[in-house]
């Protein structure tokens, strides 16, 4: 495993959050009906930051939730390791809300698929929009993001590591090469 480059540093990440927050407000013509849901783990912190930014810009406190969609995954029969599950924490009513679903990396699209199913089981939002920090390509399902922090084309033996201050002690995005033996 070897770090190839650092496409985004701390300042870059801050700018991305600012731009995406503006884009969300522009597209939805304000923040009136919005709610933000972050996907565990790093999507959660990203969601917090976007919510804070929107509060700064629009002076509105958005409902904020955390989603763990592990139970909806499609790889229970094929995985060798049992995935750890944790609690979703969504205390507001999803019905008729415009949901901004936030995650760090968009890759195959399978996590987003499971998240969509999970959200549908909790209510009937007016819309769900996908906000992603890094789109690294290689989609296996017809899923695309509405807000993209950065497009970083990758090969299959590369990986994107998003670091966030809250858990990793730094803000950065790394492109990493993994050795496939």
């Amino acid at each position, binding site marked *: 495993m070897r770090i190839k480059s650092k496409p985004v540093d701390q300042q870059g990440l801050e700018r991305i959050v600012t731009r995406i927050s503006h884009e969300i407000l522009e597209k939805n013509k304000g923040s009136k009906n919005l709610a933000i849901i972050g996907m565990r783990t790093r999507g959660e912190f990203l969601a917090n930051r976007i919510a804070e930014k929107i509060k700064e810009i629009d002076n509105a406190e958005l409902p904020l939730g955390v989603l763990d969609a592990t*139970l*909806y995954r499609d790889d*229970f029969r094929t995985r060798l390791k*049992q995935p750890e*599950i*944790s609690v*979703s*924490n969504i205390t507001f009513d999803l019905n008729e809300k415009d949901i901004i679903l936030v995650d760090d990396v968009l890759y195959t699209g399978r996590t987003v698929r499971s998240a969509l*199913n999970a959200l549908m089981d*909790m209510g009937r939002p007016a819309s769900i929009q996908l906000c992603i920090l890094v789109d690294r390509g290689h989609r296996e399902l017809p899923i695309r993001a509405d807000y993209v922090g950065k497009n970083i084309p990758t090969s299959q033996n590369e990986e994107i590591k998003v670091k966030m201050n809250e858990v990793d002690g730094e803000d950065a995005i790394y492109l990493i090469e993994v050795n496939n033996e």
Partner: protein
Amino acid sequence: MPLNSRHLLGLQGVSKEDIQLILDTAHTFREILDRPIKKVPTLQGKTIVNLFYESSTRTRISFELAEKRLSADTVNFSISGSSVSKGETFKDTMQNIEAMKVDMVVARHGAAGVPLFLTNICDANIINAGDGIHEHPTQALLDMYSIRQKLGKLEGLKVCIVGDVAHSRVALSNIYGLLTMGVKVSVCGPSTMIPRYIEELGVDVIHNIDEAIQENDVLNVLRIQLERKAKEYFPSIREYAKYFGITQERLDKNGKDILLLHPGPINRGVELSSEVADGSNQIILYQVTNGVAVRMAVLYLLGTLN
């Protein structure tokens, strides 16, 4: 981190880490039970047989709901209406059921050791839903989960198990589980209902119910099993209720905020007075709700092992 065993036969010998994992996982499932659609697709395609050789309301419905909420296919078996009445042996019955390709078996039986026997004759994951007077692990797990949720911890607490300890599988599973989690466990009841040598498991014996109320944070009150000839162990039900029944007066007298658990079904006016059974100390229905989440956790952790 997966569980260390592919079956759940009892809590004897189950590690602290495994119990912790089940309780933490249950907490995740607890959230699902509050959703409008109480179902996740996790065990889709798994077939689970509920093999109940003994009557049951709570445990059976609880397991069946847990299975359905994880999207497993379920089949219910009970002796009435089955070929058991035609003289088929237990082993033959079980092997025929297994030949229909089942992944997990939830078993309740009047004889201790049946779940263990099942692990020898079939490949499915086995979950013990109560075997004779041996163990009832999911009941003890839901008791522990309920205590942990209400009091915020398990370690360092004092829990007393009251009643017919000698004939209770709930008591034995609770004793094993609670001791593993660092709880100080005692038992209380008439001496005919306290097994000899029980101190060797590491529990204290109290014969005075007032003392038990004063000295503990939690009482887990067992049902007097009238169908298992419990009456032979004390002179009369009235006398039992007088000396060991929990009444509001008794709780007030000892002036202590105590948490009351009961595995159900309650004999009102025997082990608990009606007032106490509906009172503010008890968490009986809370236990029942948590039971579904705890069983979902066990089914998930065993059913998704590869």
